[in-house]
């Protein structure tokens, strides 16, 4: 298991469920955890769900991806309070997460992954 993990945060549970399926297919060895929707499964983001997803992730250093700006604010707060190093990427959500995860699976070094994520920045 690599010491990097991937954290996915979305407003809707189904989006991150589906994205996790897509990513696991290309990266069976990468630690991927996700938080989608509010505590009661509605549209929004949940600080608690994100915190749980951080704890459950086997990675010590997390690459985090989110859909809309408000999930980023929740992610930020979790990141500030967490012991893990959490890097939040302002990239296209699905495309950025896919790229990072595929590269982690291929054991590409972190600084090289950062470079490949750069052009996917849209936020």
């Amino acid at each position, binding site marked *: 298991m690599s010491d990097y993990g991937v954290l996915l945060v979305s407003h809707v549970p189904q989006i991150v469920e589906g994205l996790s399926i897509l990513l696991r297919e290309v990266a069976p060895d990468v630690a991927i955890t996700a938080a989608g929707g509010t*505590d009661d499964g509605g549209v929004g983001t949940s600080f608690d769900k994100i915190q749980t997803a951080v704890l459950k992730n086997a990675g010590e250093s997390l690459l985090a991806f989110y859909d809309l*700006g408000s999930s980023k604010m929740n992610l930020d707060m979790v990141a500030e309070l967490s012991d893990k190093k959490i890097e939040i990427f302002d990239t296209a959500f699905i495309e950025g997460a896919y790229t990072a995860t595929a590269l982690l699976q291929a054991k590409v070094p972190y600084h090289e992954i950062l470079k490949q994520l750069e052009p996917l920045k849209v936020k």
Partner: protein
Amino acid sequence: MLTVEKTIRWLNLFGQKVEEKKVYLSELDQAIGDGDHGTNMARGTAAMKTVLEQKAYDTVQDVLKTAGMALLSKIGGASGPLYGSAFIGMAKQAGEGAADVSAILEAGLEGIRKRGNAEAGDKTMVDVWLPAVDAVKNKELSRERIDEWVKATEPMKAKKGRASYLGERSIGHMDPGAVSSGLLFESMIEEGVLDE
């Protein structure tokens, strides 16, 4: 100055106003967002009320921090981390002394700005917090002025949050977070938080 009891009364009045205006707040959000600001805020303030009733609090800091964590956890929208950061910031400042309400509110504003990076004029809750904090400092906060700041978000073009996706089309509607923040400051006045 803030005392434990006054703070709790303030926050409960805020929650009551949010509950009363729930539908209105969501309607405002429907126009330029996703239509959930009222339900978000009502869920958050209801959770806040519950935790504030659950035990006795010794310090204002403790009350504000508990309120902030409840709002952060339960609101579920952008306003969750924003109000959460405001209250957590206020709690930290209240730890330095609960007498200086103006400094406490200033710390709340700082929390919001740090979290959301909004500037004055971006059509967010900051457009109420910013002048309100200033007015408290100068002892001139009033219901009328709060209403003015809230209404002043109507002609603004949103630069932050979901409304910013609409560009020009965000003009002509009041910002829901500005309205809910207005309720927070109104409640302060009504509960005498600002009285010496």
